[in-house]
């Protein structure tokens, strides 16, 4: 069930063929009418359950039933931004229909600003509680880390709704921002989310997508490493069970010189119809000399009837890079790991639980905030406790 990785590397000019569509050439527009309703044949929808997602393709505003709370420590400033009010739209340009609908139909965007040189003592927590499976919601969130600021934003999604959401992330020079988006929806929630980030010189972004609950959850993060020496760590962890479809299309654009990116998404799947889709695109642009980039996706398929699709793509437009690589692996339990644990007295069921926990905990280990790391491991443990492997 391993999907062969595909690579796009520059071919000699004479034989170069124009690709069907590279990630950087995806159309962008703020007008929903510019995006036809997806049929499932489009490159960015071909692995998505478009019929289940149909409610998110209706060009209509939300009903306002979702509850938003933003808990931010000093000196963070929290406010709203009308359409066209800077910095809303300075970085974000929708790339698909739900995102364009969210962009056009959200009157007031939430704005969270870390002022210049602010160093937060605790994370900012943005919580969304859905208004019910029949409700609908659009949202636009602007997370702005001004120059030299350091902080963490946790974005939690719970309950049920049908949410089209945009997250616009602006990271100023030398700022270090961590964004953790947690999807713990009820089983009937639909969620299409596009995160777009731009990093200035010397800025860093650690971006983590945690998806444990929801019916169809599609979180597509993209990052523009515009400033020299900017760097991104893009991580994801998910656990899909019967009937759940969890998807992430990750895009890293090495735009400026000496930029670095590390992408790692890990997913466990179990039960009939459990499905995960990961498409990872890395583009190293012509000015991105001295770039170092790595992307990987690993999936653990725990039972029959579950399916993981994994497609890494790497496009390099400069000859002068420090390193670039990608990896993709989808497998079942490693029998040797189970044997090792069982040979130490651990019963099979617990050995399996420990192997899955360890597999997913690798992402938690990369989150530097200890309290968040513990919370994520506890969430993984709770998810495992619910499931019978």
């Amino acid at each position, binding site marked *: 069930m391993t999907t062969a990785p595909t690579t796009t590397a520059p071919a000699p000019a004479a034989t170069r063929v124009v690709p069907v569509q590279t990630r950087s050439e995806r159309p962008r527009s703020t007008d929903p009418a510019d995006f036809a309703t997806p049929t499932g044949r489009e490159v960015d929808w071909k692995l998505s359950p478009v019929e289940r997602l149909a409610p998110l393709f209706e060009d209509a505003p939300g009903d306002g039933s979702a509850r938003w709370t933003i808990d931010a420590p000093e000196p963070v400033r929290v406010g709203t931004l009308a359409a066209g009010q800077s910095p809303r739209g300075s970085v974000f340009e929708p790339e698909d229909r739900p995102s364009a609908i969210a962009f056009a139909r959200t009157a007031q965007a939430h704005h969270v600003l870390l002022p210049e040189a602010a160093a937060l003592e605790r994370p900012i927590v943005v919580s969304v509680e859905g208004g019910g499976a029949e409700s609908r919601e659009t949202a636009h969130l602007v997370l702005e880390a001004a120059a030299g600021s350091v902080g963490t934003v946790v974005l939690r999604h719970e309950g049920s709704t049908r949410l089209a959401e945009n997250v616009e992330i602006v990271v100023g020079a030398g700022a270090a921002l961590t964004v953790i988006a947690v999807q713990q929806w009820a089983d009937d929630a639909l969620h299409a989310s596009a995160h777009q980030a731009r990093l200035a010189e010397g800025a860093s972004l650690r971006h983590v997508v945690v998806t444990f609950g929801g019916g169809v959850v599609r979180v597509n993060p993209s990052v523009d490493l515009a400033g020299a020496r900017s760097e991104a760590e893009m991580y994801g962890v998910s656990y899909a069970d019967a009937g759940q479809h969890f998807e992430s299309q990750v895009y890293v654009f090495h735009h400026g010189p000496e930029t670095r990116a590390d992408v790692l998404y890990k997913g466990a799947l179990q039960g009939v119809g459990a499905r995960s889709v990961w498409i990872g695109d890395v583009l190293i642009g012509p000015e991105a000399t001295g770039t170092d980039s790595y992307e990987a996706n690993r999936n653990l398929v725990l039972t029959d009837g579950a399916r993981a699709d994994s497609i890494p793509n790497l496009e390099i437009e400069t000859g002068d890079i420090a390193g670039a690589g990608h990896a993709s692996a989808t497998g079942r339990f490693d*029998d040797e*790991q189970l044997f*090792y644990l*069982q040979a*130490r007295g651990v019963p099979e069921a617990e050995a399996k639980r420990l*192997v899955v*926990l*360890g*597999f997913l905990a690798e992402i938690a*280990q990369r989150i530097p905030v200890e309290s968040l790391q513990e919370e994520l491991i506890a969430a993984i443990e709770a998810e495992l406790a619910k499931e019978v492997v």
Partner: protein
Amino acid sequence: MSTATPSQLVIRDLRVSIDTEQGSKPILKGVDLTLTSGEIHAVMGPNGSGKSTLAYTIAGHPRYRVDGGSIELDGQDVLAMSVDERARAGLFLAMQYPVEIPGVTVSNFLRTAKTAIDGEAPAIRGWTSGVREAMEKLRMDPSFAARNVNEGFSGGEKKRHEILQLELLKPRFAVLDETDSGLDVDALRIVSEGVNRAHQETGLGILLITHYTRILRYIQPDFVHVFVDGTVAEEGGPELAERLEDEGYDRYLAARA
């Protein structure tokens, strides 16, 4: 602490095969061996003679199919037990190639194993200091506890970690599968001291599997068994190991040819 009533691990006429692309291949062709607690047995032999197959069959690795014979631990049928039941019954295998387990820290792993073996969680305070002391004696840096099991460990670190488990889990019988392979002189001495410590403290029985006589300078065997082509070709006391040191396995192989 030496056990009042000695335990026995009795292997009789053990025949084992593995599945290969060319079909089923017999590896062990009738092995008899009896270990009593407190004893150290060395199993020696050339590559491919079935030494590791014996180790993995005792531990219950699913790759090895038992075609006949028996393994009994104090009268209990070991072959009827699952892998984890064997470990809880007191059998331990120090592996030649310990497996990496990403995301599971050594400290979590050791506590989980100890809890499984003992049937209850160890008292936190005594356990933590016990682990630290055992690590110190094996010259393992305290930072080891926070690393993921065997991930990025050097060959020597993996073997120390195996012996650390031997010392902490306190089995009745331990099979050491080529624990000496890939160790430099210092590491070999440190690891051997760990084995001897466990032997003195708990009086366990040891089946020491090795290709070379080198480790027997540090761990003195009571008995030596020479494996050739899936059977025990010769048995004796420690003097047999000395003879192998001088002569190698050639005379057994020549006798077969």
